[in-house]
């Protein structure tokens, strides 16, 4: 894992190549015919087509959110192709049958997945453009009753589960991008942990956008039944293009009684060049429902890429004594813009939430934390602690904090702390005078700043996240 991530992230953005696989690309534009085409291509049941069409019809009545503190040219949703799949020659039974060109792509990425999975003990469900190509470790997981597969496969193999849970945490009409995703999502990950099962390994998915100007609409659904627990890792990389690419994923988590879901992300999508040209637009809806008593949902994110990030991994704390956590490091450099944070909605009694957000801005970037803590009248004894720290590097960037706190139960306790600091030339000189160069100094200061969040990451992720930040901020100081 360590070496893999190192290759993925700890270097100048080198994934700027396009794999030459004959893509099966849908014509540009979005209408009901396109949605029917996607559904047909994926051989979906009628109810899922209806789900999509319902979402599409709601989407048509909605408007793009204007409240985020980000600026970008209007997106022409009719100029996007909503489906792209590598043409499989036949149904794949093993890695040997995977298109060699695809395998070479993995090699270029430094991801020899067959070896990697075994070496790192991580089951990896690789998403290549929008279709899952191969799933490893599935059988091993199946032994303990864990389902870990692409969502398209789950639609066919476990329709009752998909039907029961899909769209229950993020309803199709939840927001503009969630509606769009619900209408056109092509693939994603499904994970189901039956009652009492603790997942024996961290589960991981690498996303990769490959076809130029094809939107990427991932859909992830993770269910942990009573007493189950899982740690899920998501890491991203995308090729370097000048045209902006839209990404609007939806992630839904459901934790039943005493279940525990930990979702960690290291996001390193192409952020555009130094002048702000190109880069991914990342408009993501992530939400976890802590449905059962004593359940826990924990989000940890390290956001370093994308031209624009619009993302608020949230927790609905419905079960009594349930716990929600959000640990975030968001780094912006050059002309990147991030408006990210969380929502903690306390419904059950004695629910607790923790928010630790660390924003780092460099270059001409703009980094905003936006968070909502809502205590419902039913949430007696609810507690929240929020800490939002910003660090500025240089004097052309900006950092903002937008905390929204709504308390409707007098017994609740809500704390919010915020700070802003700056890496100064004199700090760097102090390090230099002790023999420590600028890059190492910045990395050390940033690590100190982000310590509380990195501690939450699985160990190998933490090490690589540290290096990633150092690289992202290279040359931004001194």
């Amino acid at each position, binding site marked *: 894992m360590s070496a893999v991530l190192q290759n993925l992230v700890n270097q100048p953005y080198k994934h700027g190549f396009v794999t030459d696989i004959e893509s099966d690309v849908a014509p540009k534009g979005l209408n009901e015919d396109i949605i029917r085409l996607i559904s047909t291509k994926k051989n979906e049941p009628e109810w899922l087509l209806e789900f999509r069409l319902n979402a599409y019809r709601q989407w048509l009545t909605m408007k793009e959110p204007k409240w985020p503190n980000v600026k970008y040219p209007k997106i022409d949703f009719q100029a996007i192709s909503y489906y792209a799949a590598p043409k499989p020659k036949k149904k794949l039974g093993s890695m040997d049958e995977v298109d060699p060109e695809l395998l070479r792509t993995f090699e270029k990425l430094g991801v020899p997945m067959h070896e990697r999975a075994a070496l790192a003990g991580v089951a990896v469900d690789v998403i290549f453009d929008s279709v899952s190509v191969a799933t490893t470790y599935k059988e091993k997981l199946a032994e303990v009753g864990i389902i870990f597969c692409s969502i398209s496969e789950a639609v066919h193999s476990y329709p009752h589960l998909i039907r029961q849970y899909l769209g229950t945490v993020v309803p199709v009409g939840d927001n503009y991008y969630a509606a769009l995703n619900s209408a056109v999502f092509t693939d994603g990950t499904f994970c189901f942990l039956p009652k009492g099962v603790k997942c024996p390994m961290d589960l991981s998915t690498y996303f990769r956008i490959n076809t130029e100007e094809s939107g990427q609409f991932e859909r992830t659904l993770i269910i942990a039944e009573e007493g189950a627990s899982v740690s899920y890792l998501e890491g991203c990389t995308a090729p370097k293009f000048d045209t902006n690419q839209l990404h609007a994923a939806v992630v839904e988590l459901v934790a039943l009684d005493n279940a525990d879901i930990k979702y960690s992300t290291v996001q390193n999508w192409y952020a555009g060049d130094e002048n702000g040209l190109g880069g991914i637009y990342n408009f993501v809806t992530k939400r976890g429902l802590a449905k059962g008593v004593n359940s826990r949902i924990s989000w940890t994110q390290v956001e370093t890429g994308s031209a624009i990030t619009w993302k608020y991994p949230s927790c609905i704390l419905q079960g009594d004594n349930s716990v929600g956590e959000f640990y975030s490091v968001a780094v912006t450099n050059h002309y990147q813009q991030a408006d990210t944070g969380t929502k903690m909605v306390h419904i059950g009694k004695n629910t607790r939430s923790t928010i630790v957000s660390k924003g780092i801005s460099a270059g001409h970037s703009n980094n905003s934390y936006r968070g909502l803590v809502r205590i419902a009248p039913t949430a007696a004894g609810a507690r929240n602690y929020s800490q939002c720290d910003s660090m500025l590097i240089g004097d052309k960037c900006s950092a903002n904090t937008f905390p929204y706190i709504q308390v409707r139960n007098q017994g609740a306790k809500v704390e919010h702390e915020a700070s802003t600091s700056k890496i100064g030339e004199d700090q760097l*000189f*102090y390090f*230099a*005078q002790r023999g420590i160069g600028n890059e*190492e100094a910045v990395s050390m200061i940033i*690590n*100190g700043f982000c310590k509380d969040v990195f501690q939450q990451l699985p160990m190998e992720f933490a090490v690589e996240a540290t290096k990633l930040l150092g690289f992202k901020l290279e040359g931004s100081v001194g």
Partner: protein
Amino acid sequence: MIYPGSTVLLEVRDLHATVNGIEILKGIDLTVRSGEVHAIMGTNGSGKSTFAKVLAGHSAYQVTGGSVAFEGKNLFDLKPEERARAGVFLAFQYPIEIPGVANSHFLRLAYNTVQAQRGRDELDPLEFEDFVRDKMKLLEMNPDFLDRGVNEGFSGGEKKRNEILQMALLEPRLAILDETDSGLDIDALRIVTNGVNRLSNKDNAIILVTHYQRMLNYIVPDFVHVMQSGRIIKTGGKELALDLEAHGYDWVGAGRPATADV
């Protein structure tokens, strides 16, 4: 102490430097040999601290003329971190706070960086812990210092001790102490200067930058230089500091042109 036949560590010739386009150093000459302790005294704004920072390589100062050789090599060819690794140490007048970075981590990285440069073994965190605790005794420092952020919330005296602790760890060839005595009470001054004295040996040299004679009661200089308007206008032995204390800085400057451009 002056040792016969000792090697020249630092050779400063006609050094000129500016900050924001204003010339602060206007032709400094200074030769420092290993084993020696030099005191540079002068009023506020005379250029003492600027001189110290120029030697360390602070980017706010531009060298506009002259030369500085450190162990025979052009000091200005080296970046600040390279100077540090080569053995130039500056104890800061106002050590900056670096919140979130544990002092122990910082000290170990600095130590290992310099050790690596000298081709010596680096220490792992456990070995370093023992090593640094030993050095801390020299400065009567509480081990709690290791767990706190670098200089974070330290009192003035604690910051100065932390500086000398770093000097003890890095074992520089040339240590420049920029007003290390300022802000210290008598006890702290005794502890800090005692630490410096124990680090002084025939292979290194110390430049003390100070306003006051009082530190020189503890660290006895071999040479005292008086700086005024960016130049060294008088050099003498340790007794010069006492004369200055008795008569004031005007006494040296009297009879000299106020600021003649060279």
